[in-house]
Every structure is written in structure tokens, then in C-alpha cells.
């Protein structure tokens, strides 16, 4: 790692001020950023740890029926505390990485990084979540803008993510066994006004909504509704773990499995 200064603000205002500094970078749980720093893929002058901000931690059910998760809430806490409100989200969180990673990694870090194979972006997009920052609310549909690219401005901090709780939902991940990232992961959520299907791990453009499946499942919520559909391999990721065609096929298969799992 290149040298950097480390600061751990106690308030959101202090964190915002620290992130306004030259070459400052926010640090969540560090489970992606610290390995990236070790590889010298990033060279911030200052790391601003967000884990000391109590208002960014925790899970709560809001009056409007949404589930609010603080940006610095670890995967382990979401797995435990969201289970009663939004079981599919809790199950997703409880299967990210491994236990030690889940004890450090945070939802805000994952969503800010927007790794094309991360699990949380699928939950946020598949739930039509709202990404709340220190300055504004961003709809998930506007937030995810491609691989490692989001609507966040420099220095903007994710304080909370608000998930509308669906009638039924499930996330099915085809796991890349060495990294435990999603080779492909599909999040399906059924709401009163329609079904959302979000796919991670598959596209060169990062997490995306499979709108064709959403339309089919909105009129008939069963695995059979997607069996006749097909996914173009054009924009799919191809690497040593799977070809674009393989990933395109997995999108359909896993969507069907997620519908069955949602019940």
C-alpha cells in the first residue's frame, strides 16, 4: 500500500468535511478497498472511515413500510436484523463472502463500489430502493450507471438505503466458488404494482433490470413465465469462469429458480 492518512470522524459533518480534502476516499468496512489499496490500484491521500458514525449503523422498519439500512451497517447485522422484515434481503446479506467479510463489509461500501458481481446492487435495484446520501435521495434506477459507476458525486456519503418491502422476493446466486462473488445472481421481487428482476454478475454494464422477464412475471408470477424468454449474450461478461452465452443462459435459469424460491 502507498502511505495515507487515516481519520475516523465521529459525526457526519466531520466526515463530509474530511472527504472534501484533496484525494480523500471514504472507507466502509474495507473488504474491497483494502485489497485494492494493497494492489496499489488506488492511492488516496486520506482514508475517511465511516464506521465510527452511529447514525449510519442499524436496521429499522419505517412507518411507510420500507426497511431502512444505515450505510455503515455490516452484512452480518443485516443478515440478523433484516430477517424479520425482509427475509430475502437478510438471506442475501448472510451469503456474501464469508463470515469474517460479513463482520466488516458494509452495505454502503458495496453499493458505492458497485462491483459488477456484487450481491447488494441486485437487491437495491430489484427492490426499487432509494439511496439516501448526505445531500439527496437517489432512486436505484438512476443510481447504478454501469460497472463501478454510480450517481454519487465525489465526497457524497451513502447514509441509508431504503428498501420497499415486497410481497415476495428471493435472490439466487450462482456462486463463483473461489471468490464467492456471483458468477450470476438474480433478485426477483413481487410488489402489488408489478415484479422487478435485477441481475448482477452477468453484464459488462453492471447490474441491470431484465424488463422482459418483469413484464412476463407481472402478468403470471411463475417459473414458466420466463421459460420461453431468452437473454442476448452481446453485453454479457466473458472470462475464464464462464462465456457470455453461459452467463446469458444462467440469467434465465436463475430467474426461474428465484421465482420458485420466492414461492
Amino acid at each position, binding site marked *: *500500500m*502507498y*502511505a*495515507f*492518512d*487515516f481519520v*475516523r470522524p465521529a459525526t457526519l459533518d466531520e466526515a463530509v468535511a474530511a472527504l472534501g480534502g484533496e484525494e480523500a476516499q471514504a472507507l466502509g468496512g*474495507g*473488504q474491497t478497498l*483494502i*485489497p485494492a*489499496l*494493497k494492489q496499489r490500484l488506488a492511492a488516496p491521500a486520506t*482514508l475517511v*472511515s465511516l*464506521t465510527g458514525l452511529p447514525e449510519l449503523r442499524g436496521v429499522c422498519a419505517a412507518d411507510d413500510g420500507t426497511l431502512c439500512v444505515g450505510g455503515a451497517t455490516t452484512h*452480518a447485522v443485516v443478515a440478523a436484523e433484516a430477517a424479520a422484515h425482509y427475509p430475502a434481503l437478510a438471506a442475501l446479506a448472510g451469503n456474501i*463472502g*464469508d*463470515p*469474517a*467479510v460479513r*463482520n*466488516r463489509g458494509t452495505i454502503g461500501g458495496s453499493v458505492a463500489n458497485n462491483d459488477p458481481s456484487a450481491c447488494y446492487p441486485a437487491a437495491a435495484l430489484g427492490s426499487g430502493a432509494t439511496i439516501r446520501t448526505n445531500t439527496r435521495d437517489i432512486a436505484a434506477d438512476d443510481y447504478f450507471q454501469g460497472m463501478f459507476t454510480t450517481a454519487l458525486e465525489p465526497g457524497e456519503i451513502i447514509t441509508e438505503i431504503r428498501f420497499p418491502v415486497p410481497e415476495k422476493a428471493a435472490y439466487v446466486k450462482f456462486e463463483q466458488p*473461489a471468490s*464467492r462473488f456471483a458468477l450470476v445472481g438474480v433478485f426477483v421481487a413481487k410488489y402489488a404494482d408489478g415484479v422487478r428482476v435485477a441481475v448482477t454478475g452477468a453484464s459488462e454494464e453492471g447490474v441491470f433490470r431484465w424488463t422482459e422477464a418483469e413484464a412476463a412475471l407481472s402478468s403470471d408470477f411463475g417459473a414458466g413465465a420466463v421459460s420461453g424468454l431468452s437473454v442476448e449474450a452481446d453485453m454479457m461478461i466473458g472470462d475464464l469462469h464462464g462465456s457470455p452465452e453461459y452467463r446469458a443462459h444462467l440469467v434465465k435459469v436463475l430467474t426461474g429458480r428465484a421465482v420458485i424460491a420466492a414461492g
Partner: protein
Amino acid sequence: MTKVTMTVNGKAVSGEVEGRTLLSQFLRDGLGLTGTHVGCDTSQCGACVVHVNGQDVKSCTTLALECEGAEVRTIEGMANPDGSLSVIQQAFQDHHGLQCGFCTPGMVMTASALLAQNPTPSEAEIRHYLEGNICRCTGYHNIVKAIMAASGQDVSHLGSDAIAAE
């Protein structure tokens, strides 16, 4: 350099570290606690797992300064006060849960965290919880068996052959 203070295995310790100093480096190089092993240094292998405020974390992927004021426990803090092996450590010995021993500190710390939250885990739960700990010698069977035995459960059905046949 910045001063960092924490409690390690019940003792208050402090030292001067850089922003980039990892917890694993502080423990090994700063405190001489070399029982915490660094296998991969890329967050894959779990040999460096320690407890921070009771939670198992990878010390190679945690900055020392993130642990300011924290309670840290390493493998050196696992034995009983009289120096005898803890139940988990003894079970690893009794059930041959190690061969070269490099991964063992991380395995024991992870097993300890698992049993703290799930005192009688099933075999499947143990295997799921060990996903972040890599062992290149044992094939895991005897590690799983040792953890199950440490939890006080009967392991007579967990012969190596029985598991291999699953």
C-alpha cells in the same frame, strides 16, 4: 505515525503505526504475536482471523487504526489461564484437525466465533461457516469433526469415510 491503543488478549497495549499498518502487522511485528498467520494477504485464506470486539475478522484486511479502543483476541489468548489447551484447541489435537498447522490459528478463531453464536452447529453449518478459511492439508473433514466435538456433540458417525461418501 499515529498512536494506537487497544486491548489484546486482556492486556492494554499501544504502539505507533502508520495509516496503512494492518492489524496483522501490528500484532505480529509490533507486539510479537506471531501466532496470527498471514497466508495470502489478499483476504482469501482466513489464516489471519482474530476477534475484534468479539467478532471474527481478517486481520490482514483491517487497519490497525480501525481497532483503536477495541478488544482484540488472538490465538495466543485462546488457551486456558493455566496454559492448558482450550476445548477447541484440544479437539483439534484429539481429532487430528491439522497437519502442517499453518491455517490452524484462523480455524480455531473462526470456530470459536461460530460456537459463540451457535453452540451446537450442524455439520453443514460448520462447513458454511468455514468458507473463508482455507486448509490445503486436511481436506477439512477432521477440522469439521474437531469443531463438532468441541461443541459437545457426538462425532462417532463422522468417520472420514462416512463424510467422503456424502
